[in-house]
Each structure stands twice: as structure tokens, then as C-alpha cells.
């Protein structure tokens, strides 16, 4: 396509803002969009090309790319996702986080697919975009405020109660490594520390409103496909449960597969009394006041709650999803069922990623349990499992880098390095990124989580092993094209993870919520549906094979970005030592232990399928060349990482 010609589905422009000197410019999205699928796909190309190897996360030379997915702003099912990508402070490498909400659609209606943010403002500012008007406004009055106060503040200042923001809280301002960016009050660009990079740039918030339009290339066919796909959701059995409880409906399944993080990974199931106490479904039934859904979603899995009893009576917040339950409630062994709501809301206010709270606090509590840490280390706090007040106080101390919180604000990996005393065994992380995902009993989940280019995390390649049960084995085998899909089989996991790497990147690039696709239920949208939507929206006939090629190019560039900025190699793609050394202590898989040799064979297969070197994990020259990344191979040669 001619880069100057018409473009559909995309808004058409990338906005570039230099915070140091106030320069604002635009460039056409079409310069990127044929070779790099939207959002995070375009972001990795921009960041790889523009960040030199000497750049570190908090320097003005680092850049942030805020993007809306290619289908955002249309009625495509689940198309409400935005992405923030940067060089991140948690891993020191590729940082890329997504969040569902309204700001992405507003950005596209304002005429932009992405914002590239460069430099550092001399004093705190926020970015206000209203169609063609782009303004950096004084945010000194907002500095120090929570994300909730910031939303209220910008709405008041700009005189519009309907505005949407993506803001940082005190954690981002104080360069807490796991600081996140929050859309409005409750939707987080979690993990990776994108909020800290915003803080380093003195950028408090992005506020955007658009009154323009998004056009699609083949309107009639696009809408027919939409209608057909939406009817498909009517027969998806899990939809009713998702509408009622979101992913929290799956606690029993997590217990069954030994996928629960209890007392910082010491156990993978909950004691009977604990699972009864923290069951979130009765609590949701009791406190729900309304639904919460985001643009395009085919069913809506959010709920607004008003807690009227107990220690957090009066709290009004959007209900969290499963990750919060496992990383803040069960990991830290808190019995009060409303604690997860309180802790999640508080993290959101502080702009602190829940895993960057649960990870280091869990590590610290286990170290305290074992006598590695004492009250001399913890500002006098007794880090007893389940002590909700202490946990909330630690979230505050982390957010403000106060006392012992300054140690925890570095994430569990660096905190353990700082403390020493053999505490690193209890620091559950991958590539420096705090982990909530128990990996021991689920091989596809583990492989995808630990090889993730953004550090630990299950949303860029892990298989969803809780749903891979004997009853659906045939269907799963057909989807993945494998014979051995079950979670405790080492065979075929590499192939399944690569399939998930494609699916999750397609979702992230198009801006489609994972839970509207087969990521959430095997009867939902699959790659052919996404290819169809993208083709009709853009007018560019795009096959599943094309999507695979585009996303594999993206994975390889993410990998190369990490090789340029970090020392990651094969050892960093392995599970945490505890996961490899300890058997599952209780539950249906009691006694199951990963076979390290077989795990390495699985990893070999994963590298082979990718065309990466087994010994180092580095992409091979021919692999890069086949993907049109010959220049990347040359770059890697120069730093001694060519293969």
C-alpha cells in the first residue's frame, strides 16, 4: 500500500511529543502498519529503531509509546485495549502492558493510533489531547495525588466530567520499579513498570477526547462478520459465569490444577477453611451494585461493588479479577474476603502494580517466617502471614519508598540481592519481573510464562491449563494442531506456547481483549475470525499465516530488543529455582515435580521451533533474515550476539 494513501481501521497518524522542548509532530501510521500489526507491534519497531543500546529506563532518551489497537474504536468484539510500551525498569528490557478501557477509543477518534513520548518535562505536566489540539499542561498541583484524585482533578480543570485519563500515582512519581499506569480508577497497564517511566518523565497523566470517526474498508462485510461473531457468543457456556464473576469464577479450577499461590508459592492449593473464606462469588453477589463493561466487549465481565460491611465498609470500587485474588489475598494468606478489593483499590490509587506489591511483600513475609528478616529490617513491622493492616502499610511504604518500603520498591529480585542472606531462593520472579503464576504443575503455562519477552507473565504465550481438561482434549488438540495438549505432558508444549504467542500478540495489536477469544474459552474467536475482522476493517487481505508471520517478526524484535539492553540468555527462560526443585506438596497433583531434564528438552524444542540457538536462546541469522529482519541480525553481530 502507498504510505500516503487512505488507511482504514487505523486513525492514520502517530503523534510525537518531546517533553523536553515541547515539540509536537505527527507522522503517518501507514509507514509502519503493513509490516507491523498495530499497537505493541508498531511500538516495538519504533523503540527498537530509536533507542540506542546505552539508553536506560529513566533517562530522557527513553521513550514511551501509548497506542490503541487497530480495531479499537470499532464494534469488533472486545476491541477496547490499549498498550503502553517502553524500555522498562523491572527487567531492564522490553516492557509492554495492555489495559482495557475508554482512552484508546478516544485517542483514535481524536485522530491518532499512537503517541510517542520523548524527553523529560522540566516540571510535572499532563498531556491533554482534544482532536487536533495537543497541549502540555501544568501538573504541579496534581503531583503527589492518587490516580483517583488525578482523574477528578483533570476533569474539574478541563470542565468535562466524562473525560478519561491514564495517570500515575505516587508510586510512579517515586520511581517504584513496578509502578503502573491506571486508566480512570481501575484499569491498570500492569507489570513492567511503565508508570515509573512516566514518572521519570514528569508526565502525570494523558487525557484524551476525540470527536472524529474511524472508517473501515468494507463496511457491510465488517458489520456482517461482527453480527455473526456476536451470535457465536450466545452459545458459549462460560459467558454467563464471566458476566457474573469474571475470571474470579475459576478459583475451584485453580485449586484443582494446583495453580494457587499460597504463602509465596510454598503451597499451590489453599487449605479447606481458606478456600471457603476467600471464595469471591458470594461476596460479589452480596456487594454488586452494577455491571461494568468496556467498548466492544461481547459480554462484559466487570462489576461495580459497594462494600457495606466489615473492615472496608464504604469502599466503592470495580471488582478485580483473578490475579489480584491470587497475588495479594491468597499469596499473603489473608482470610477477610473483601481484602482483595481494598488492596486492589489502594494499589490502583497509588499506581502500583498488584504483582509489584504481592511479589516483594510475599518474599518479605516468607523471609520473616524463616527468620531471614527480622523487625530490625522491617521498620519494626511484624510480617505475619495474613496481617491485612501490615500489608496495606507496606503498599503505602513501597509507593512512597519509605523505610523498608524503599527495599521492596525495587521488586523482589533486587530486594533479595540487597538483603542477601540466601533470600533469593524465595524471590519468585522471571528476568526481574515479579511473578504471581505458580508454574510447577502446568508445563505450557510455565513455558509461556518464563520465556515471555517482557519478563514473567502468562499473557504473552502461556497456555491456559485450567481449561485443558480431558473433556476438551480433542478440541484443544485440533486448535493447537497437537497430539499431547495435557498440562503434565512435556510433548507439544513448545508448539502450543508459540501458538499462544501469536494469539496474544494479535489480540494486543488489534486491541482485542483476550477474554473475547479462545484465550478465554475455546468456543470464542480464534485466529481465523481475527484475520477476517482485520481484513475487512483495513481492506488488506490478511490470512492466519500472515498474522503468524507478522507476530513472529514482532516476537523476534522483542527478543533482539532484550539482547541489546540486557544480558538475558537461556538461563533466564527457566522457571524460578523453587519451581524446579520442589514437588507440589498437596492437592490433586501432590508429589508432582518438574523433571529438569525433560524441561530442558521442552525448552530446546521451543528454541528449535523459533529458529533460536539452543545454547544461548539468541535468534539465528537465517531466522531473522526470513522474517525480513536482516538488519537486526547485523545489529546482533555487532554486540557479539549473532548466531
Amino acid at each position, binding site marked *: 500500500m502507498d504510505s500516503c494513501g487512505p488507511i482504514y481501521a487505523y486513525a492514520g497518524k502517530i503523534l510525537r511529543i518531546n517533553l523536553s522542548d515541547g515539540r509536537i509532530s505527527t507522522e503517518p501510521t501507514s509507514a509502519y502498519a503493513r509490516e507491523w500489526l498495530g499497537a505493541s507491534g508498531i511500538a516495538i519497531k519504533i523503540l527498537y529503531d530509536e533507542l540506542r543500546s546505552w539508553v536506560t529506563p529513566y533517562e530522557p532518551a527513553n521513550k514511551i509509546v501509548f497506542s490503541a489497537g487497530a480495531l479499537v474504536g470499532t464494534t469488533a468484539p472486545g476491541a477496547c485495549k490499549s498498550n503502553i510500551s517502553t524500555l522498562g525498569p523491572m527487567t531492564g528490557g522490553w516492557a509492554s502492558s495492555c489495559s482495557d478501557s475508554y482512552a484508546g477509543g478516544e485517542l483514535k*477518534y481524536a485522530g491518532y493510533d499512537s503517541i510517542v513520548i520523548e524527553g523529560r518535562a522540566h516540571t510535572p505536566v499532563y498531556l491533554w489531547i482534544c482532536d487536533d489540539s495537543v497541549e502540555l499542561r501544568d501538573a504541579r498541583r496534581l503531583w503527589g495525588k492518587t490516580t483517583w484524585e488525578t482523574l477528578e482533578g483533570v476533569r474539574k480543570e478541563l470542565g468535562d466530567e466524562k473525560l478519561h485519563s491514564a495517570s500515575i500515582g505516587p508510586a510512579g512519581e517515586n520511581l517504584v520499579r513496578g509502578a503502573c499506569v491506571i486508566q480512570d480508577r481501575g484499569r491498570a497497564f500492569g507489570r513492567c513498570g511503565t508508570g515509573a517511566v512516566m514518572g521519570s518523565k514528569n508526565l502525570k497523566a494523558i487525557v484524551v477526547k476525540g470527536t472524529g470517526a474511524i472508517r473501515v474498508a468494507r463496511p457491510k462485510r465488517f458489520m456482517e462478520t461482527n453480527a455473526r461473531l456476536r451470535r457465536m457468543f450466545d452459545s458459549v457456556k462460560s459467558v454467563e459465569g464471566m458476566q457474573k464473576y469474571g475470571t474470579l469464577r475459576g478459583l475451584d479450577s485453580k485449586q484443582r490444577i494446583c495453580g494457587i499461590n499460597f504463602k509465596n508459592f510454598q503451597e499451590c492449593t489453599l487449605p479447606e477453611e481458606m478456600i471457603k473464606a476467600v471464595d469471591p462469588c458470594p461476596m460479589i453477589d452480596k456487594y454488586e*451494585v452494577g455491571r461494568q*463493561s468496556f467498548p466492544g466487549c461481547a459480554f462484559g465481565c466487570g462489576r461495580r461493588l459497594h462494600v457495606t460491611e466489615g473492615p472496608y465498609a464504604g469502599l466503592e470500587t470495580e471488582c478485580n479479577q483473578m490475579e489480584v485474588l491470587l497475588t495479594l489475598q491468597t499469596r499473603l494468606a489473608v482470610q477477610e474476603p473483601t481484602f482483595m478489593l481494598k488492596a486492589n483499590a489502594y494499589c490502583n490509587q497509588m499506581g502500583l502494580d498488584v504483582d509489584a506489591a504481592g511479589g516483594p511483600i510475599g518474599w518479605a513475609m516468607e523471609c520473616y517466617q524463616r527468620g531471614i528478616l527480622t523487625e530490625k529490617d522491617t521498620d519494626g513491622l511484624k510480617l505475619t502471614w495474613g496481617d491485612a493492616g501490615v500489608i496495606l502499610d507496606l503498599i503505602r511504604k513501597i509507593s512512597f519508598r519509605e523505610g523498608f518500603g524503599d527495599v521492596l520498591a525495587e521488586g523482589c529480585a533486587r530486594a533479595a540481592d540487597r538483603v542477601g542472606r540466601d533470600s533469593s531462593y524465595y524471590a519468585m520472579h522471571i528476568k526481574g519481573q515479579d511473578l504471581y503464576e505458580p508454574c510447577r504443575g502446568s508445563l505450557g503455562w510455565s513455558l509461556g510464562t518464563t520465556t515471555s519477552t517482557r519478563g514473567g507473565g502468562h499473557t504473552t504465550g502461556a497456555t491456559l491449563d485450567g481449561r485443558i481438561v480431558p473433556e476438551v482434549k480433542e478440541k484443544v488438540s485440533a486448535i493447537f494442531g497437537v497430539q499431547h495438549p495435557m498440562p503434565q505432558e512435556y510433548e507439544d508444549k513448545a508448539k502450543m506456547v508459540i501458538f499462544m504467542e501469536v494469539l496474544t500478540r494479535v489480540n494486543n495489536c488489534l486491541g482485542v481483549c483476550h477474554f473475547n477469544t479462545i484465550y478465554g474459552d475455546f468456543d470464542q474467536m480464534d485466529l481465523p475470525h481475527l484475520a477476517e475482522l482485520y481484513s475487512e476493517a483495513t481492506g488488506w487481505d490478511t490470512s492466519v499465516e500472515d498474522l503468524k508471520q507478522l507476530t513472529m517478526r514482532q516476537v523476534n524484535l522483542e527478543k533482539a530488543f532484550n539482547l541489546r539492553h540486557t544480558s538475558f540468555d537461556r538461563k533466564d527462560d527457566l522457571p524460578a529455582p523453587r519451581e524446579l526443585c520442589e514437588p507440589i506438596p498437596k492437592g490433586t497433583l501432590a508429589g508432582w515435580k518438574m523433571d529438569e531434564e525433560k524441561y530442558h528438552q521442552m525448552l530446546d524444542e521451543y528454541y528449535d521451533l523459533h529458529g533460536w540457538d539452543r545454547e544461548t536462546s539468541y535468534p539465528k541469522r537465517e531466522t531473522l533474515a526470513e522474517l525480513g529482519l536482516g538488519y537486526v541480525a547485523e545489529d546482533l553481530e555487532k554486540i557479539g550476539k549473532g548466531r
Partner: protein
Amino acid sequence: MIFDMPSCGGCRTCEMACSFKHEEEFAPSISSVKIIDRDEGPGFRVILLEETGKEGMACDGCKEFAVPMCMQYCPESRDLREILDQFTRRGEASRRAPPPPGHGRGKET
């Protein structure tokens, strides 16, 4: 007209669908239906525009379709149908006998 819709989750997909019906493009700013937050209580408020103006285009009830566009994209379409029916009935009533000032705004909230 403004209506309460307690079951609305606020996804605003109806706004996109409505604008598509009018102009074959996605532009909530021209939509006949607007979803707005409530200060308290469940759900959201639904505004249906009676006249075309700077807020958007007048709702014509999508008479050319068996099911109005906004309903086709609403997970709670039965409740939205009720609102559309009220909108139509009140519109017809106001054309027959214009109400005094302060009335004729649906289920006022």
C-alpha cells in the same frame, strides 16, 4: 429523553453501532444514543436524541431494521428495547399533544 438503565454496563458499543447506521463510520460524537455515568445507583443513563444538533443525530428508531442497531450490540438488549419503546411512545404522544414545560423527558432521574 433521558432514561435509567440499571443493567447497562457502560460499554458504549451502542454509540458506535448507532453512528455506523447513520454515516457508515464509527463516531460516537454523532450517535443518537449517549451513555452517561450516574452519580449513584446501578447502571448508567441512556440519552436518546429527539433532534439533530451538536450532540448528535436524532434517533429515528432504525425503522429500516428488524432490530435497531443499538440493540444488536447491547448485551442487555431487552432492557434497551423497553427504553426505545418508551422513547417512541413518548415521541408520538408529544407530537399529538405537546406537554407543558418540564415534562416529556422519559423516566426523569
